[in-house]
């Protein structure tokens, strides 16, 4: 049963990641792929504080969110002036640069990562208690995003995505809107990081590399970019599928390529069959 709980944790964490990433690229139209680095910042901050201090775990996770938000605002202020594709490259550079640092610093454990993250909840109900916390937080994040995007702010954000010039001409500060959605999205990724670190008690740099960017992006695209439920469906499918594959007990050398093939084939199939994702409607697609 512990296995089910940990699979549920993964789904919950990825729902937070995919939903917040969807806020940034789907609703906001900000093409960054650096989402995993904010996931990493949250995870590493929470883990390092947990190991090095006696602060309660809630404070550590909150600190992780704080660091992710600060880093995201720093990145946003400097790079959001850049448009579209350049932003993509800049975010990639930011992600790989920071990962390079994590890989080389001593206090982050280098490439081996951190494995001595303290236990916070013990006992037989640990997995289920974590799952409950994670589920509640995921619901809160998704609800907040849904709430914000259904209201006037959401309409302004979508207007910005579809036509920046027209939106600015109507008196909206694009820059402020971009920073707000970026900071919120990345803060949520930091939260996911804190949860991940405390539950799995092991983090390493390679969990936050570009393959992770691809995974989260696939979830969003597959589920339906710019929709409320799309990222949830995408996260569920893409976590459940590899778990199902591990049940088939294939040799490990096959698992890596197989995952790549599954991601790619799914995405390509979907581009042909359901171009706007599993739950997306035609008008949900973004016209640039």
């Amino acid at each position, binding site marked *: 049963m512990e296995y089910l709980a940990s699979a549920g944790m993964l789904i919950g964490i990825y729902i937070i990641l995919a939903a917040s990433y969807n806020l940034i690229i789907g609703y906001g139209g900000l093409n960054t792929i650096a989402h995993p680095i904010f996931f990493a910042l949250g995870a590493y901050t929470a883990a390092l504080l947990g190991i090095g201090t006696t602060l309660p775990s809630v404070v550590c996770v909150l600190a992780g969110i704080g660091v992710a938000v600060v880093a995201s605002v720093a990145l946003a202020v400097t790079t959001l002036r850049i448009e579209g594709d350049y932003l993509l490259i800049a975010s990639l550079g930011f992600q790989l640069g920071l990962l390079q640092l994590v890989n080389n610093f001593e206090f982050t454990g280098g490439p081996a990562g951190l494995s001595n993250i303290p236990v916070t909840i013990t006992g037989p109900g640990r997995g289920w208690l974590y799952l409950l916390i994670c589920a509640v937080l995921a619901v809160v994040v998704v609800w907040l995003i849904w709430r914000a995007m259904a209201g006037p702010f959401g309409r302004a954000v979508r207007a910005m995505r579809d036509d920046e010039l027209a939106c600015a001409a109507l008196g909206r500060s694009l820059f402020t809107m971009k920073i707000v959605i970026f900071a919120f999205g990345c803060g949520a990724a930091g939260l996911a990081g804190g949860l991940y670190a405390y539950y799995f008690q092991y983090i390493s740099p390679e969990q936050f590399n570009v393959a992770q960017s691809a995974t989260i992006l*696939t979830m969003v695209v597959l589920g339906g970019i710019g929709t409320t439920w799309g990222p949830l469906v995408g996260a569920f499918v893409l976590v459940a599928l590899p778990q199902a594959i591990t049940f088939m007990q294939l040799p490990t050398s096959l698992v890596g*390529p197989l995952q790549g093939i599954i991601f790619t084939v799914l995405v390509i199939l979907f581009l042909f069959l359901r171009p706007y994702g599993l739950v997306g409607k035609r008008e949900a697609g*973004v016209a640039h």
Partner: protein
Amino acid sequence: MEDALTLILAGISVGSVYALIAIGLNLTYWTTRTMNFGQGSVMMLGAMMTAVLVAGGVIDALAALASLVVIAAIMVFTEVFTVRPALKIGGSMGWAVSTLGVGIILQGVAAKYFGSQAVAFPDMVFSAQDYVEVFGVRFALQYLAILVLSVALVALLELLLRRTVWGRAMRAVSMDADLAAVAGIPVRPIVLGSYIASGLLAGIAGMLIAQTGGTVDPAFGFDLMIFGFVAAVLGGIGSSSGALLGGLVLGVIEKLVGGYVSTAAAHGIAFALLVVVLVARPQGLFGQREVVKV
């Protein structure tokens, strides 16, 4: 002093290869406005296939040629099955996933069939020990050969783009594909051609870098591709000469930092440079500001 000169020459040589990668990335960016994240794996596959074929007794040139043919086929596949369908839906970012996916698959396939360990890359023209002495400073012949070959390729490509009908057609497509189609330019073959050319450049670049490093493994291409992006951004994504300059600057900085500080720092510097340049001069160090018409 001798050290610095050696490092700078090595930097220029490696930088010229980064330029090849950058131009390869540019070509497909111009025609489809997408970035091919599979490029790194294509580079790796080219170098690795060549190494494995040569180890299996195939003549060097034939092995390289066979690898390039395979790469060209992969690039055609990439365009037809992963980029084109994704582009039908504007703003879906599907191409980012699908090209990355191709990269992950290729990496997996290489690990499965060629092994995940590093494979020794054969000495093709000069060995790492051959050198010439100029003013008492030793220059590795390998680096000189790479530099000459890369610069010649860049010049050839520039010539093709500016002087031939196909080159002009490609530039027309990159400016406005719809208008080019209206003018009777066969857009599809041109786009396919840009992917093949991009793959060939990547394949050659992969072999050249593997030659200087001596080995190649399945994870080999990704960082190189990022360096290609950095070179392209440094020079401004619009131009081949910019990419060449960007590549050279990046190569020299990388080698100097690697030689005097540490190789780990060299990577960090490259990424920092990327972000700084994008923020300060989004059009690139040598590029011209793109005028946006409203």
